């Protein structure tokens, strides 16, 4: 394992269509850090997370994630499988049950006992397993989506407003999960408006404004 930064952006530009959502972002994240992204709506937080996940295009500048170069197509593919992104979308099939969704998205790569434990911990085990996702509440959907992420044990967690739509217990659960992952050596970048809550969790806070990253003072 290299001990270099997990994420390293230099002048990264990312275009959403023709709009520069990221306009020259610089950011270094060291292993084990939990970085909180703060900033107004439309500042580029989501695009920053998607760039780190290998989804948003790197249009200019340089970016490496987990020592892989995001400018390279094959590296980008490798990055995707090693990070866990919880975005605005939950990426679930409404027509399938919770269990079927989780099994499909973990691709049989996760030990089924592990999977059961994760689902139980996230509160989507038990009788919820056989419920179609379309019938779930927004919070339950997010928990289902999150259980896929947790079960895949990503090296880098990218969470976009993870607390949105969750009840108090769910929010605490998220904090516990992130803390635990960090203890086990994972790194996390969290975009959140709930700075009070995340500040206790974060090892560092940065501001994202105008498609750039600034150190918060």
């Amino acid at each position, binding site marked *: 394992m290299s001990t270099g930064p997990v994420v390293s952006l230099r002048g990264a530009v990312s275009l959403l269509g023709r709009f520069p959502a990221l306009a020259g972002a610089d950011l270094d994240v060291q292993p084990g850090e939990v970085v909180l992204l703060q900033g107004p709506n439309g500042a580029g937080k989501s695009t920053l997370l998607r760039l780190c*996940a290998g989804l948003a295009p790197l249009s200019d500048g340089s970016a490496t994630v987990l020592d892989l170069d995001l400018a390279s*197509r094959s590296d980008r593919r490798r990055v*995707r499988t090693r990070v866990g992104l919880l975005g605005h*979308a939950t*990426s*679930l099939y409404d*027509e399938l049950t919770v269990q079927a969704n989780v099994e499909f*998205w973990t*691709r049989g790569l996760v030990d089924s006992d592990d999977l059961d434990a994760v689902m139980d911990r996230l509160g989507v085990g038990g009788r919820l397993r056989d419920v179609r996702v379309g019938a779930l509440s927004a919070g339950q959907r997010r928990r289902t989506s999150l259980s896929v992420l947790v079960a895949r044990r990503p090296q880098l967690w990218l969470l976009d407003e993870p607390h949105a739509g969750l009840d108090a217990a769910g929010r605490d659960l998220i904090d516990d999960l992130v803390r635990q992952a960090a203890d086990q050596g994972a790194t996390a970048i969290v975009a959140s408006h709930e700075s009070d809550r995340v500040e206790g969790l974060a090892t560092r806070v940065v501001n994202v404004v105008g498609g750039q990253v600034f150190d918060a003072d």
Partner: protein
Amino acid sequence: MLTDARAIALKDLRVEAASRVLTAQVLPFGMLVLILFGFGIPPDRRVLAAEGDVSRSVLEQVAPGLFWLAVLFSALLAVNRSFAVESVDGNLDALKLVGFDPAGIFLGKAAAIAVQLVALEIVVGIGAFLVYGPPLGDVILLVATVAATTLAVAFAGIVYGALGAGQRLRDTLVPLLLLPVLAPVLLAATRATESALFGPSSSGWPWVGFLGAFSLLYLGAGIVSFGSLLEEA
């Protein structure tokens, strides 16, 4: 690749089985098109068949073409649906994130579409026999034609469906791109079916060969290009 393909195909089929879009919307659409052709083409008019000494109703004579047109239009709906399922909740991104092999995604989606098309063809085909009343000549040739056409439509359909994936204009773009591509398929399938129904079988088999070659070509194109197509979707 094949494991991924299997997972994707099963998932797509389970989603379709649960949503019943095929049975509740696509099938009725296909049947409706069959009936509507009867309004456009006078059902009582008769023509002399190419063989010379037989006369048939116009509808019966053109039944193979009408059947494949109905299948083609329904297939457009199915292709659109196959990618709509992935765009509603950002699933296309998630498919990339969990590391599915693009070629596997292509094969899986094509297989799922092929299964749905076969179901569609059986039902609409029975409908066409009932409504247009053509004779049934060479069953083996007919089955081979249906199989080869299904693969051709499925492979080409998924390649072009991916071209429009994640686009606001998908609904109009995909038919514009796909229909001219499938024109030779329609032509070959219709000729082969004509031979299977009215004979002679010998003139149908070359068209089946053409359909097979077309399928292989798009199978290759899909496996090679699907990564590029999905990459920046």
